[in-house]
């Protein structure tokens, strides 16, 4: 067990070394998109929109937090694709005498760290814009779970996709539609019924609703936390299998 944890730590250590060296660049670059969302949808459009729960900004913040953590965690892990296909540095981990799941877990933990740092920055920015968000342990758990799910999705894509172009398509066809439709900028009840049913099954929708409810101190459906847990478990199994299949 100790050896497995050490292997996970080694994989995480590599990403930590790189992140520590680029921390300032990372922070600055990760602030751009959320800042623009806040300005455009919060200050710009948001001033003319009122929602049932009150200010649009307070409605918006949890949604942007969900989509931002999704993007950061997904994109933090996708360099593994280049390590596998182009630089071949992934071979170093395949040859190494490490616990086979250590690579996936270490990479996901590093992606969670990046996702959470970015989320913390965004929450600080949101407070500066006058937003009100209640940060509870469950709120943080949901946020972390969202990072886990999309880091695992990014890992799976990195194992399966063979070109940069295809990797971009994963972003275009999966992440971008989710960013806009999964209850981030507007409630899913505004969608046509058939589409709404599909969208409400997606993990980002569960995260958006959970964060929105928890952030405003309302009761939330714990079944959504369970669904996120199932997504995380399913994608872990999928990612592990894809990694182990590299040797076939």
């Amino acid at each position, binding site marked *: 067990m100790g050896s497995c944890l050490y292997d996970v730590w080694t994989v995480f250590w590599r990403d930590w070394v790189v992140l520590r060296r680029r921390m300032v660049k990372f922070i600055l670059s990760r602030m751009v998109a959320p800042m623009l969302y806040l300005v455009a949808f919060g200050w710009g459009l948001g001033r003319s929109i009122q929602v049932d729960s009150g200010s649009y900004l307070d409605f918006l913040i949890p949604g942007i937090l969900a989509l931002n953590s999704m993007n950061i965690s997904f994109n933090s892990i996708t360099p593994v694709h280049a390590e596998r296909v182009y630089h071949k540095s992934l071979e*170093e981990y395949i040859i190494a005498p490490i616990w086979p799941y250590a690579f996936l877990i270490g990479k996901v933990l590093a992606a969670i760290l990046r996702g959470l740092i970015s989320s913390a920055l965004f929450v600080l920015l949101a407070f500066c814009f006058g937003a009100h968000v209640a940060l509870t342990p469950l709120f943080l758990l949901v946020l972390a779970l969202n990072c886990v799910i999309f880091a695992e999705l990014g890992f799976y894509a990195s194992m399966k996709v063979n070109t940069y172009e295809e990797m971009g398509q994963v972003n275009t066809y999966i992440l971008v539609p989710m960013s806009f439709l999964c209850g981030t900028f507007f409630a899913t009840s505004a969608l046509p019924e058939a589409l709404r049913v599909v969208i409400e099954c997606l993990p980002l929708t569960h995260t958006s609703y959970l964060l929105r409810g928890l952030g405003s101190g309302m009761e939330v459906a714990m079944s959504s936390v369970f669904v996120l847990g199932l997504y995380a478990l399913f994608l872990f199994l999928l990612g592990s299998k894809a990694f182990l299949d590299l040797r076939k």
Partner: protein
Amino acid sequence: MIEIHNLVKQFPHRDANGKNVYKTAVDRLSLEIPAGEIFGLLGPNGAGKTTTIRMLTMQLLPTSGELRYMGKSVRGHEQEMKQLIGVVPQHVNFDLDLTVGENLELHARLHHMGSRERATRIRELLEYVELSSVVNENVRRLSGGMKRRLLIARALIHRPLILFLDEPTVALDPQVRRRIWELIRHMAKDGATVVLTTHYIEEAENLCDRVAILHCGKLVGLDTPGNFCRRLGSFTVEWDGEESRSYQFFSEKREAAAFAATVEGSVLIRPTNLEDVFIELTGRKEGL
């Protein structure tokens, strides 16, 4: 000691008719390599050298067959067996976001070395491959020869008993190549078993105690470079034939000279080399 019994690797493949079939990259390969030997795997492109190395280094699962290191089957003991091997890949596969020192440290950590041992070993090996001055440089900034030497240093960090080198001197200038040969000899002298693949016949002749020649995934020859040449004939007569260069092999120099006297035009009598053996066994010169 490496024991390979009936090793087979098949890959899914689409044939000319669009049918999904299996292509055999390595076909029932059996070998035994004693400890401390420098063993060469030769073969034209597509002969199965790299696939063999990838199976031996546990990067690929064999379709069938058995692999044993130090008398113990690899199957079921992979983590333990991986601790025994060091790998110098064909391509430079460093982590490009890390420095020279960090790349070595990552490798040492992946092999469960303690912090004090890591630091000492990294310092020792950087001195050994004469790269101490670039420990804090990003690996992208190294020259081709420096990267190759660093690959060797990385493979040696955890003191492997078996070292695999896949085309260790590919695309390097002669000075660097000779420097790397020295390093390989040094490792074998220190007791490591070295298995290398190479396109350079001269490299195999100079370095290897024994050589296996692969062709279309099959073992077509296994011997010392000297024995290979003796078996073919120690002397080669080479002349311009009607369509291409022609060769004839003789065990005695006087037989070669007698034959050469019967050939019209320019004739060369020379010692047979491993390249002649290679061409005779594989029937092709491309890919050398």
